[in-house]
């Protein structure tokens, strides 16, 4: 019964930004940005370089502290409380453009560090969890290698697995395929599509429009520190409302 009533009611909001601003000196990288992501939603954020996409997504797990406005994750408004921040960060996974794996740790150790130190899991439990997610990203055989021994695509898949080992409610991706050689992009996108199919809530900054078309529930187009357009993928790709959005699409779909 319960399941029926839950699925019929609208999904709860899991991330909410209200008039969020961020300044670097006198430069305003985010200008009163507001958005809402509900549980299970996949939001793809695009826009020209320097438009504030990274700053926006990094505000969600407070790698970037906002100067004004409100950021609410899972019902908790994020402030300067360090303990609360750590708790939120275990709920929000993040995948970086540059992978940022720990080079002195093996793949397995990379995956086990967060679960053991933050979630206080025992070693055997953490190891089992790590192996499960390595299977999920399809590189269990690389468990004992070091990051420098892997290809870029493999490293990024390890990074995704590392975040998943925290069993987060939300996954943030900041241009996860931009640092990859073209032939490795699809192996990472495949893993992300599979993740989307499991119902994970995702915010993805990417210029991979094929991925966006396939996965996105919501497209967000940013320019100059502002959200210029929020729409469904069909609408954004066929008839973008803003002039800048049209221009951006033209440039990006040219090649």
């Amino acid at each position, binding site marked *: 019964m319960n399941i029926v009533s839950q699925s019929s009611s609208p999904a709860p909001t899991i991330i909410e930004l209200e008039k969020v601003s961020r300044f670097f000196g006198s430069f305003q990288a985010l200008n009163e940005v507001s958005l809402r992501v509900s549980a299970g939603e996949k939001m793809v954020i695009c826009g020209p370089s320097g438009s504030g996409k990274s700053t926006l997504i990094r505000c969600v797990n407070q790698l970037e502290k906002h100067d004004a406005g409100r950021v609410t994750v899972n019902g908790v408004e994020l402030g300067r409380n360090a303990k609360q921040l*750590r708790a939120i960060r275990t709920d929000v996974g993040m995948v970086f453009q540059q992978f*940022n794996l720990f*080079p*002195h740790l093996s793949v397995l150790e990379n995956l086990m*560090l*967060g679960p053991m130190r933050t979630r206080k899991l025992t070693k055997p439990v953490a190891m089992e969890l790590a192996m499960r997610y390595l299977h999920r990203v399809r590189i269990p055989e690389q468990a004992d290698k070091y990051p*420098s021994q892997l290809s870029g695509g493999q490293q990024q898949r390890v990074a995704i697995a590392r975040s998943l080992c925290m069993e987060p409610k939300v996954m943030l991706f900041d241009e996860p395929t931009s640092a990859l050689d073209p032939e490795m992009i699809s192996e990472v996108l495949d893993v992300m599509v599979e993740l989307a199919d499991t119902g994970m809530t995702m915010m993805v900054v990417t210029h991979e429009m094929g991925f966006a078309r396939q996965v996105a529930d919501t497209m967000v187009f940013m320019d100059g520190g502002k959200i210029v357009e929020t729409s469904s993928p069909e609408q954004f790709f066929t008839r973008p409302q803003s002039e800048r959005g049209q221009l951006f699409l033209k440039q990006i779909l040219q090649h």
Partner: protein
Amino acid sequence: MGHIIRRQRLWILLASSVLLAGCASNLQWYVVSPATESGRANLLFLAGGLKYTLLLSCTAIVISVVVGLLVALPGLSKNPLWRGVNRVYVEVVRAVPILVLILWVYYGLPIVMGLAVSVFWAGVIALALSDSAFEAEIFRAGIQSIDRGQLEASDSLGLGYFDRMRYVVLPQAIRRVLPPLGNQLVYMLKMSSLVSVIGMEELTRRANELVTSQYRPLEIYTVLIIEYLLLILLVSAGVRWLERRLARRDER
């Protein structure tokens, strides 16, 4: 052109062989010759200081690495007050000559604290204190060289300050600062000779004592130099071995 250089070489060869011959005629190697009974006894006496040179230097370097790290951490803080603590410590400690610090700790500290410090511990404290300022700077630079992305990844996994340091930053930083740390160890081995002035029976003190009784400074101090040389070559090789071992498995 070529013949000028050749002539110069000839001169240097001639001059040095004359010098060597002159010295050789004055050298009385029997005082430290392994061939004679007394020579062997003297050599053993000299080498007997090795234990204290090593003990002094190793104890001091361990303490100074720990203190140096503890001083480096506030230097990396966002809070200017903590950074100030780091700056003052480094600037003050770095400004005091080691020899002066040794004398001050040995003769001065008992008056201040009202308790006697043994020669050994006075030496260790002075050497460690003096070196810790340099270790602090080395660690600060090493930690600062770690890529921001490593810190962001740690943060995104919810790691706290100590976990982040212990599991992510320090293991990488220590690898990078191993060469300068090795330098400091070599420096420490050499500076430990200064503790001879307060009567520590290490290599230099032993040599001094033997010179007083045997009146052969040239031979005995030459042996002393060779002792330090061998010791330090050995330590350098050890540090390089450690570097290779740590570098082998990762990073590029």
